[in-house]
C-alpha cells in the first residue's frame, strides 16, 4: 500500500477529521482516500479522491472476498492514479455513476447493498471500461503476494527445500 509521509504523520483522528464519509467504507479528503477506521490511506496523484473511492468499491464488488481488506483492493486499482489513465478512469466512473442515477441511486457509492451495486455493474459489464477494470484485477488483486496467505496459498517452496519433508502428503481426513 502506498502511503505518503504526510499521511503517516497524522493521527487517525486528524486524518479522519480532514475528510468526509464516502459510501460505507471510505473517508475522502481533498487529496486522499482512507479506510473508515483509518487503518490505511492512499494519497492521490492524479485522480479525484471520490473516483478512487468508487474504483476501490467497484473492485471489491467485482471480486468480493470478505477476508480481504480494502487496502488490497486499493493497491489493485492504484495503477490508474497516473496522468495517462485520468481520462479513462474519470470518464468510466462518471459513466458508472450516471448508470447508478438511472437506476435510482444518487451515485454508485450511494447504493448501500452489494446486490444493488452488482445490479449497476451488470448493467455496464459489457463496456470496455468494466472489462478493463475486471481484467486488470485478475493480476492486480490475485498476484499480490500479500493476499496469498489470506487464501492459504504458500507461493514458492524451493527456498525451503520443497515439501518433501514439509507436508506434501500430510492430508489427514481421507
Amino acid at each position, binding site marked *: 500500500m502506498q502511503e505518503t509521509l504526510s499521511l503517516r504523520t497524522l493521527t487517525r483522528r486528524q486524518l479522519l477529521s480532514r475528510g468526509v464519509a464516502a459510501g460505507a467504507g471510505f473517508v475522502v479528503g481533498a487529496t486522499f482516500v482512507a479506510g473508515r477506521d483509518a487503518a490505511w490511506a492512499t494519497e492521490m496523484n492524479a485522480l479525484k479522491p471520490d473516483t478512487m473511492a468508487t474504483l476501490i468499491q467497484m473492485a471489491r464488488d467485482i471480486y468480493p472476498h470478505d477476508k480481504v481488506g480494502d487496502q488490497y483492493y486499493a493497491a489493485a486499482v492504484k495503477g490508474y492514479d497516473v496522468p495517462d489513465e485520468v481520462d479513462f478512469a474519470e470518464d468510466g466512473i462518471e459513466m458508472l455513476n450516471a448508470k447508478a442515477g438511472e437506476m435510482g441511486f444518487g451515485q454508485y457509492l450511494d447504493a448501500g447493498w452489494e446486490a444493488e451495486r452488482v445490479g449497476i455493474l451488470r448493467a455496464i459489464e459489457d463496456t470496455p471500461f468494466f472489462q478493463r477494470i475486471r481484467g486488470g484485477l485478475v493480476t492486480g488483486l490475485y498476484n499480490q503476494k500479500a493476499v496469498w496467505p489470506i487464501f*492459504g496459498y504458500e507461493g514458492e517452496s524451493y527456498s525451503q527445500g520443497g515439501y518433501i519433508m514439509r507436508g506434501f502428503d500430510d492430508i489427514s481426513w481421507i
Partner: protein
Amino acid sequence: MAAPFDRNDDSVVVIIGTGAGGGVLANELAQKGVSVVALEAGGRYLPEDYINDEWESFGQLAWLDPRTTSGDWRVAKDFSGLPAWIVKAVGGTTTHWAGASIRFQPHEWKALSTYGAVEGANLLDWPIDADEMAPWYDLAEKKLGVTLTNNLPGLPGNNNYKVFEAGAKKLGYTEVHTGRMAINAVDNDDRMACQQTGFCFQGCKWGAKWSAAYTDIPRGEATGNLEVRERAHVARILHDDSGRVTGVEYFDADGALQMQRAKVVCVAGNSFESPRLLLNSASSMFPDGLANSSGQVGRNYMRHTTGSVYATFEKPVRMWRGTTMAGIVQDEARHDPSRGFVGGYELETLSLGLPFMAAFLDPGAWGREFTTALDSYENMAGMWIVGEDMPQESNRVTLSDTEDQFGLKVVNVNFSDHANDIAMRNHAYKQGAAIYDAMGATRTMPTPPYPSTHNLGTNRMSERPEDGVVDRNGRAHDVPNLFVSDGSQFTTGAAENPTLTIVALAIRQADHIAGELSRGNL
C-alpha cells in the same frame, strides 16, 4: 569439422527448434557423428534461472509473440492472442511440461480403421504401428527416466493425488497410480530426485524433471557435433531449382538477417510455428507453401479434448504442494463407443497456484459465484482431462495479416470442437465430478480448456502423399531433404500426453536420417 559451424557449410543438418522433437533429434544426430546446427528462437534458461512465480515465469518462458485466433472454442474469446501456452527457449516446452510419459495404445495408431469414418472428421491411420514403435518407446523411456518403467520406482502421491486416488477407487476405477512420469523418484542419470516443490510448469529448479534444456542439449554440444544458436528466429526455408532445400534464412539475436546453408532441414517449431514456416516459405515453385501439394499443411490442428474439474472440500487439501501432475486414472482411455464417443481420455491430477487459478478457473467470470470458489482455494483438489480429439480439415493454422517484430506473418489458429470432442468432454466432466463427489466434495467446477499445451497435427504423417505432409519417417512427401520432427507430424492425437511419442519419433528419425546420410541418399 567441429562446432561452431560456418554459415556456408552446406554439409550440416539444420534443425529449427530445440524442444522434445528438435532438441532430442539434435542430440541423437550429434551422438552419431552428424554435424548439426540447431536454431532456437528463444534464449537459454537453466534450473538456476527458473522462477517459481506463475506470472513472472510466464513472462520469462512463454511464447508471447503475436498470434490470432478464430472459431468457436472459448480460448478465442478469453485468450484471443494466446491460443497456446508453450515455451520459447532452448529446450522448448520440455521446460514447462508436467512430465506425463505414456505410450499410445496400439489401436490409437489406427484411428480410422478402429473407429471407422466419423462425420466431419478427417481421420486417418498412421503409416506406422505399435509394434514398429515399441523399441523406440523403450529408448525414449530410458532417455527420460520414466517412473514405473525400467525398474524405476513411482513417485509418492501428494495430497491432491490422495483425494483423486481414493475417489477414483470408490468409483470402481482400477488403473489408478502416480503415473509414468519423466520426474525422478530417485536420483537417476545425473538428475536428482523430486523434492515435491510444485511449480513443475515453471521449469524444475532441481532438474528432477527431464527437460532437453539440461540433458540432450548439453550432451549433444559436448560431442562437438552440435551448435545451438539461441535467439535465432527462422524466417524461411530456401530451395533450389530441383526442389531440394538448401538452407534457411533467420534473424539473429541482433535482428540481422543471416543465411545458413544445409544438407538437410528439420522443422521442429511446434504445430503453429512449423506450418507457419512452411507457408511463409512459399515460392514460385511451391506457391501454396513448401511441402504443401496435398493442401494439408496447417490443417487437422488438434489440441486434445481437455478441460479441468476442480472441487472444494470441507477440509484443506493444499493441492499445490508437490508434483503438479501427481497421478492418473486410465480406465477411460479405452475405445468404447457405448459411452457416446469414439476414442478415450485420461484423467490426471493438476493444480494451479492462486494467481493462475484466478485467471483460468472461469475466465471472464466475476461476483460471488466466482470468488467463493477461490475463498476455498486451500480446500481445493483438481484434475485435468486429456482425450483424443478429432482431426478436422477446417481446424487449421493459416497465415494472418498480423506481422511479428521481424515483419513475418504470424499464424491465425482456427478451432471449433467436433461433436465427438464435446461428448467426450461432457463425459469426462461427469466422471471427474463423480470422483470428487465420492470424497464428499462441497462443490465441483467443470473448468474450460486453458490455452493449448498439446498442439498437434498440422503437418501430418500419411502413407499417401495426397493425404498428408510427411511420410512414415517424417520426411516431406514433396521435398526429399526436408523433415518435420515435432508434434505437428501426428496423424491423430491419441488420448495420451504427446511428449513421449514426440521423443520416440525423434530418436527413430535420427536413426533414419543418419542412415540415409551414410548411404548417400540425402
